[in-house]
């Protein structure tokens, strides 16, 4: 042991891949606008994603106004309503969550947490952002073309998506498809960076099994995205041809208003397969980074090592692999062979096993932990509770016989909002409260944060629990108005009105959150380099916020995993990943002499 410390230099073999040369910006424009620094790109991604997310938030208010108080808002026509639901869904899933988790958190955290100076292909990384921005702009442009954006539903099922009668069939649908294709091209450029950086640019000592789970989650989600987005790409290209060139990839022979259309011979079900071959992995593209981040949040804020680290890694990998063989559980009502349904129901239920393991491990990490109810911790707990909720309704829907009556009802809407709307957004909030001090050097206001948490958490349940119930009653999704529907009691309308009121309150709380960000950025309490006393490398940078190149003149060397918390005999209750063992020893010798993380970084 002591020997190892003495000839430490002999003990560290040279890196297999040489350190790369860092790109140095030469002007204001290349430093802040066309920047190749992953941290700047991360912030560009995040702001763009949040901005477009706000558009989707406003759209959801409009939808709820219509559902809660039908016949009150004359400016919302049926066509508008369909356009709102479509754009809301697509923006939230792809342009907000995917872009924020991978382009935002991925870009910011990967180089810092693996101990790299930057992404491996900075130029391509920069292009990735600008193409993403172009995709967002094309999407927004569809609001301003004749006919408006597409109203086909976020699943864009043909043939209705491109036929006259569906709002936006004139131009909106084409812009949507083009925007998706652009997004995928841009994402692929970013994704290459994330994967290769995690595999090739880890600093010395950072073995795969010493990576923080955040990185594992983002890494695996990127792998899923690289393999799943091509399916959406292929679907989008083929549908663009159907719409513009009159080909019939997805269009069967069809007559409209008694008139035979020029289409014939295509297969609409083919599109459904392509869409869900992308669509189901997509839900894990959003969920896996959330899993990873939440693991780190609870470990740091409960001062306890993550329970079952290796199992957590394997669970992420297995969930990722399984998510490619369950897609047809979204197509139980498409008239497929019952044996298919049986197969997909089985695989779907199997996914619950690794997922449950993760939940147990989170709970066991909290168990006997020294739980600090900081704002990030609140959101992390909120995530676990909500995810379990949504996961359980997923098990309902995974069974064909249960799904058939519930399919296309508000129950499905409640399921996926719990599991893919509310839960990941909780993690996004928790992560922002957690890493904000690293990004700005200041803490966010706590009372405001707590208020934000409780309104969001309680509000989410007040919104989505009633939707489960409405789904049981048989209220269909994607209906503009119910009119006279015998089997649905009058009181359902009161429930709908209640939900709408809560939606507006929760929406207002998000404005408080944005206000908190803005104020804390300027006036927040100074946080110092490592306010949460965390072990991972991003907290050990010599500067806060981290400077160009992240880690001063030499890269850190990693000696242990990222979960050395709650150590009984250490002076501090944690040991940073890069604290050399000899420093640690001297610490033990003269206990009482505490080392701050900032010193350790030097």
């Amino acid at each position, binding site marked *: 042991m002591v020997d*190892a410390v003495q000839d*430490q230099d002999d*003990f*560290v*073999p040279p*890196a*297999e891949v040489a350190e*790369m040369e860092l790109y140095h910006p030469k002007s204001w424009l290349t430093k802040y606008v066309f920047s190749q620094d992953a941290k700047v790109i991360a912030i560009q991604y995040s702001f763009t994603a949040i901005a477009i997310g706000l558009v989707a938030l406003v759209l959801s208010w409009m939808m709820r106004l219509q559902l809660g108080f039908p016949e009150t808002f004359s400016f919302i026509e049926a066509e508008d309503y369909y356009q709102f639901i479509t754009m809301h869904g697509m923006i939230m899933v792809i342009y907000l969550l995917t872009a924020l988790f991978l382009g935002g958190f991925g870009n910011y955290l990967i180089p810092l947490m*693996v*101990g790299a100076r930057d992404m*491996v*292909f900075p130029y391509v990384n920069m292009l990735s952002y600008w193409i993403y921005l172009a995709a967002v702009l094309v999407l927004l442009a569809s609001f301003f073309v004749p006919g408006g954006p597409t109203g086909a539903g976020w699943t864009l099922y043909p043939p209705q998506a491109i036929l006259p009668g569906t709002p936006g069939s004139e131009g909106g649908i084409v812009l949507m498809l083009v925007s998706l294709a652009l997004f995928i091209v841009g994402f*692929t450029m970013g994704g*290459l960076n994330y994967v*290769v950086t995690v*595999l*090739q*640019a*880890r*600093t*010395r*000592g950072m*073995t*795969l*099994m*010493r990576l923080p789970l955040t990185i594992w989650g983002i890494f695996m989600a990127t792998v899923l995205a*690289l*393999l799943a987005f*091509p*399916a959406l790409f*292929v679907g989008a*290209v*083929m549908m663009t*041809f159907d719409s513009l*060139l*009159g*080909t*019939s*990839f997805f269009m069967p022979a069809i007559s409209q208003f008694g008139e035979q259309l020029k289409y014939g*011979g*295509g*297969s609409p079900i*083919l599109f459904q397969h*392509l869409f869900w*071959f992308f669509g189901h992995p997509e839900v894990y593209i959003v969920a896996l980074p959330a899993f990873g981040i939440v693991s780190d949040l609870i470990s740091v804020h409960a001062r306890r*090592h993550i329970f079952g*680290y*290796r199992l957590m*890694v394997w669970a992420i990998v297995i969930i990722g692999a399984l998510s490619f063989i369950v897609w047809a559980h979204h197509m139980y009502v498409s008239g497929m062979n019952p044996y298919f349904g049986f197969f997909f129901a089985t695989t779907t239920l199997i996914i619950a096993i690794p997922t449950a393991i993760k939940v147990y491990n989170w709970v066991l990490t909290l168990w006997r932990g020294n739980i600090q109810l900081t704002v990030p911790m609140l959101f992390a707990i909120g995530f676990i509770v909500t995810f379990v909720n949504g996961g359980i309704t997923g098990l309902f829907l995974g069974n064909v016989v249960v799904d058939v009556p519930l399919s296309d009802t508000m129950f499905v809407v409640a399921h996926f909002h719990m599991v893919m709307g509310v839960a990941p957004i909780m993690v996004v909030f928790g992560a922002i409260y957690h890493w904000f001090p690293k990004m700005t050097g200041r803490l966010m206001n706590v009372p405001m944060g707590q208020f934000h948490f409780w309104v969001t958490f309680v509000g989410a349940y007040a919104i989505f629990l009633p939707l489960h119930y409405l789904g049981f009653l048989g209220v269909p999704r994607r209906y503009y108005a119910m009119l006279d529907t015998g089997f649905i009691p009058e009181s359902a309308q009161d429930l709908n009105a209640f939900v709408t009121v809560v939606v507006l309150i929760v929406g207002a709380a998000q404005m408080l959150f944005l206000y908190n960000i803005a104020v804390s950025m300027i006036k927040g309490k100074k946080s110092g380099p490592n306010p949460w006393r965390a072990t991972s490398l991003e907290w050990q940078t010599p500067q806060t916020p981290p400077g160009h190149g992240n880690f001063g003149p030499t890269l850190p*060397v*990693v*000696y*242990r*995993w990222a*979960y*050395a918390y709650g*150590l009984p005999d250490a002076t501090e209750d944690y*040991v940073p990943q890069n604290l050399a*063992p000899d420093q*640690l020893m001297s610490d033990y010798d003269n206990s009482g002499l505490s080392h701050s993380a900032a010193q350790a970084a030097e």
Partner: protein
Amino acid sequence: MNLLQQLMEKPWLTEDNTVVELRDGRTFALSREKLGLRVFLVVVMVVFSLMMAAYIERKVFSDWHSVPLPWLLWLNTVILVFSSLAMHRAWISARRTEIDGVRVWLYAGGFFALVFLIGQLLAWWELVASGYYAAVDPANAFFFMLTALHGVHLIGGLVAWWRTMAKVTRGCGVVLVRISVELCTVYWHFLLLIWLALFALMLFT
């Protein structure tokens, strides 16, 4: 390095005595560029596989009318093979640090690739001239889409080829262009394989 072995590590065990031996981050013994290209090729392969799966899914229905493949496609295939071989020669020259060989064979590879693209356009023209429009039948649409997608990827390759060529003519040393030549060659071989798969798929109907 062995991926499985890395995933079996137990980082927490040695934690008991708080000192952990030092190890390097153990990466794949591949340069970033090569790994990046491989990841990209996997993505492209998924795109083409899905399109071919869609093609097969559609083809099994009884109302399928195959496109009569123009004989020109055979010639184009041979030209694409030449293109790949030339690129391969360029790579060999680069490894032997013969910059002249690199230049000549790169030119040849790019030239054949261009001829291939023109050949594909002629094949399209032949089909269109005899009335096989994309909008008439799904089989035609698939033919145009698959060939177009392959062509677009080749054009992307030609952009990389152009930049490599520019480096060579600017007089960069052979050591500097070696990696670019290698990446181009791998990409060329990959696109040849994709083309062979597409061609075979459309041939055996």
